[in-house]
């Protein structure tokens, strides 16, 4: 309603006059009110806005197409007057030559239907435009196209083509041309005239052969060639019409057609094993394609990484400490966005004191190493060699790291070993870890190794076969260790099995190929 009131305000219609107006009509509208309310609910989004524009003033006339108020009987009488009668009228079909009159039912009265319209289905009576020729044409132009075709047979072929609208399957099925006796003799004479005397003997032999049935390719060849020649000869003002069509007709090659069908036949006659093999090959190929794509992607990423960051922007903004942190942050986010292999989980850093001693040492080592590597790089110069040398440095540093890491452990070890016997250590559950240990408390069973889902499922399967559950009932240190070993063995065996299977399959394939050769 707000919209309507807005408009009224614009038009300077004050509230009082409006209300008066409303009250006048109210009595009338009381009856309609419910109806209109109902209607408004039904009106769609766009219409509602329009209806709002109408405001409180309802339209004087009910603007609807259907007339719900009309009485049933009235509508019936309307029907009677509007509904046209159907008359059975005779009609003739323009595509018929004999003027056959059939009767069909047409809407409307007989006297009104006098106007002669063409039969509506006449327009579907279409036929192909196949060129025509006479015997003279044939003798002049077409005789040399295919010497083993006579005028009569060519004419017969064209008739068939017209009758069946070039449906070759039907044409070849009902192609029943039988050459006359005299036709063959005529052909013989003709050929004798044309050919050299030496060859005439051979030709006679050929002619004594019976008429060989035509193939679809023969028919197509003859029809297309003759048509193309005929179209070529029909010049209007010295210009050949239908150049595209002639080109298409000339492109037909009988031998290629036969070859195509041969290939198609071979394709359809594949054995099920061949089909399966083909399918598997296609799948393999697709896999390769995917792998290649993935590799390309990875390579592109690597190249991007190796690329030195472009310094298009002025360096000044990074000189301040805040600028530096900003740069660091952006680089970090870029780094994160690139999906790298997830690194080994690092314990949350609470503060410098919270880091275990070993880790802190390692960190210091790493910093030192980096400094060293940096120095080396600077010494070497050469950007290309830098990468390789960096790797070298890393390896070295790792070795050193390991070496130095073992030192503090061995100190503790020595201390403990001096006080406890190995048996006692086992009893107390004291254990030395070779690799990094996650900070915090955890259960041994949590630390049981897992593999890739594919491998894991197989391992679990084998464990089930052995009757060992994945969840250990008594996960003591020793049990967990053994279990870990077992899992690793199973995994490696599974891997081995896979490899051998693959190789065996390849071997059989090679053997088969050799055998086939």
């Amino acid at each position, binding site marked *: 309603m707000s919209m309507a009131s807005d408009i009224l305000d614009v038009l300077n219609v004050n509230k009082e006059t409006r209300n008066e107006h409303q009250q006048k009509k109210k009595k009338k509208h009381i009856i309609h009110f419910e109806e209109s309310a109902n209607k408004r609910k039904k009106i769609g989004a766009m219409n509602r806005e329009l209806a709002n524009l109408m405001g409180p003033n309802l339209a004087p006339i009910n603007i609807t197409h259907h007339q719900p108020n009309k009485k049933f009987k009235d509508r019936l009488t309307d029907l009677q007057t509007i509904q046209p009668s159907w008359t059975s009228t005779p009609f003739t079909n323009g595509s018929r030559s004999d003027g056959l009159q059939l009767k069909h039912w047409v809407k409307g009265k007989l006297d009104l239907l006098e106007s002669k319209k063409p039969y509506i*289905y006449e327009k579907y*009576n279409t036929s192909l435009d196949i060129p025509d020729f006479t015997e003279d044409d044939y003798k002049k132009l077409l005789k040399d196209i295919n010497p083993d075709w006579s005028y009569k047979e060519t004419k017969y072929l064209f008739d068939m083509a017209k009758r069946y609208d070039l449906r070759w*399957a*039907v044409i*070849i099925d009902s192609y029943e041309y039988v050459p006359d006796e005299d036709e063959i003799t005529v052909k013989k004479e003709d050929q004798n005239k044309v050919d050299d005397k030496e060859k005439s003997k051979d030709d006679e032999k050929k002619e004594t052969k019976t008429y060989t049935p035509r193939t679809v390719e023969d028919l197509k060849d003859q029809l297309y060639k003759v048509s193309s020649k005929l179209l070529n000869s029909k010049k209007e003002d010295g210009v050949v019409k239908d150049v595209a069509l002639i080109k298409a007709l000339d492109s037909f090659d009988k031998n290629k057609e036969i070859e195509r*069908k041969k290939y198609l036949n071979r394709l*359809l006659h594949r054995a099920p094993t061949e089909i399966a093999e083909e399918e598997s090959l296609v799948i393999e190929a697709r896999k390769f394609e995917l792998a290649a794509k993935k590799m390309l992607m990875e390579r592109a990423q690597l190249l991007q990484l190796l690329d030195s960051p472009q310094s298009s922007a002025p360096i000044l903004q990074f000189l301040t400490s805040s600028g530096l942190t900003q740069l660091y942050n952006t680089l970090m986010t870029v780094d994160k966005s690139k999906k790298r292999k997830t690194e080994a989980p690092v314990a949350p850093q609470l503060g410098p004191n919270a880091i275990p001693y070993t880790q802190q040492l390692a960190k210091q080592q790493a910093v030192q190493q980096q400094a060293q590597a940096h120095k080396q790089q600077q010494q070497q110069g050469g950007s290309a060699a830098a990468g390789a040398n960096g790797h070298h440095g890393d390896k070295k540093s790792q070795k050193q790291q390991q070496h130095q890491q073992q030192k503090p452990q061995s100190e503790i070890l020595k201390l403990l070993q001096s006080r406890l016997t190995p048996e006692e250590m086992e009893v107390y559950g004291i254990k030395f870890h070779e690799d990094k240990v996650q900070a915090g408390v955890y259960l041994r069973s949590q630390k049981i190794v897992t593999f890739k889902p594919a491998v894991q499922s197989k391992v679990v399967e084998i464990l089930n076969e052995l009757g060992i559950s994945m969840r250990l009932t008594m996960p003591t240190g020793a049990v967990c260790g053994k279990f870990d070993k077992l899992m690793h063995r199973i995994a490696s065996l599974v891997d081995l099995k896979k490899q051998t299977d693959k190789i065996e399959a390849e071997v059989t394939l090679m053997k088969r190929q050799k055998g086939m050769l």
Partner: protein
Amino acid sequence: MASSSSTAAPQVYGADEVNAVVLDPGSFSTSVGYAGYDCPSMVFPSHYGEVVDGKGEKKRLFNDSFLHTSRENMKIKPILKNNIIIDWDGAVDQYNYMFKQMGVNPEDQPLMLTESTMNSYKNKEKALEVFLEQENYCAFYAVKQPTCVAFAHGKATCLVVDIGHDLITVTPVVDGFCLRNQVIGTNYAGAFLDQQLKQFLEDKNIDIVPQYRVKSKNTMYWENKESKPQFETKHYDYKIDNSVDEFSKLRVFQEMKETVLSCSLDDQAEKVPDADKDKMDVDYDEQRYFELPNGLNVPFTDAEANKIANSLFRPSDVLGNGIVKGWEEPHIGNIIETIGTADDKSSKLYVPLRRTKRPEEEEKEKDKDSNVDAKASNGADGSGKVKSEPCGLTKLVQTVLERIDIDWKPQLANNIIVTGSTSLIPELNKRLYEELSILNPSMKIRIQSVGNTVERKYSTWIGGSILASLGTFHQLWVSQAEYKEIGADRLIVNRFR
């Protein structure tokens, strides 16, 4: 035939009724109705009863109910054999009887007749003469039955497998045209099953007593060869012709086929219980009983029912063991030669060549060169007759698929239409599909048949009904004027080949 092109815009409403009458004579039943209806108005057996009264005058009876009761001096004669009208006088009488009941006005209503692709020239000539001259129809058209089936299924290009009473025919239809010379078929159809059922009952020492001979009956169950039915025979004081009995039995067999038979997917299933049969511990759950008109219930084990139905696929199995009477000569699919319309010389223009090849020749040629187009190499006709295996249903379809031009093959294989009453045997389609899929691993085989029994039985008529009510079809009718002007000879060559 503009209407038959597959690319017609679907939104155009193509029908224009001219009240045409559609007549579809089949080897078992003949159906008539108005074009545009969805099922025939009348279905009559393709037989008639001929009663000769005391004065020697013949009277023909057509009504189903008359034919299944006996009358003095009545003989029942078939109108069609192998889907081709053999008794024109009876046929015309029957058709007129039906048309009269329907209230057909020949001057206003054109008539469409469905015909076999193997219909002879003489028959076509006769049909034109009968309907245009004798019966004075304003227009007439004879359409091929497989074309009708294709129309009824809404396919312009398909492979029609019609399993009827006398014949199984496999016809490739391309754009609504039947490839007449590619048709193959056998007589291992409904009548073949009838004969097997008959011999099956004879083996059990069971005599089929027609319904009209039974006055009252008690239900009995067959247990061994000595089991006798309990019923009272109705006695007639005149001699009843053998043909009446045979006709009555036809109905019994029809019911038996409908209720008892079913195909199995593999032949192994039917052989295993056979071995157990000697031990006489037949599992009664596996048995189905069929009650004969005289109250005797005949047990059919699944294996027995399967064996008979499977003979459509492997006629050699039943023909090898005990000979089926009337089917001793193995039939190898060369139906055109068998029915003998191929030699039918009609006119100077119409001299057909023998194009049909026997499947076993085909295979020989295939061995020589598997890539040669079947059509291309059919110059050599059968020189040495090799005793060959009778041709089962799958083999027939496969042979047609192998012979057809390679360009059409996948499309036909994808549109195999199975129709005809005998195809209603359960599991028949499934078995056909499985066997064809194994034979053609690289092609997508799809078998279609309507689930509706009426549509399956009368698909030929329905197709004719659709065709005759199309607006575009009305230019194809052969009118009386055309008949007089052009003459039957050229009409048949040009239009009804």
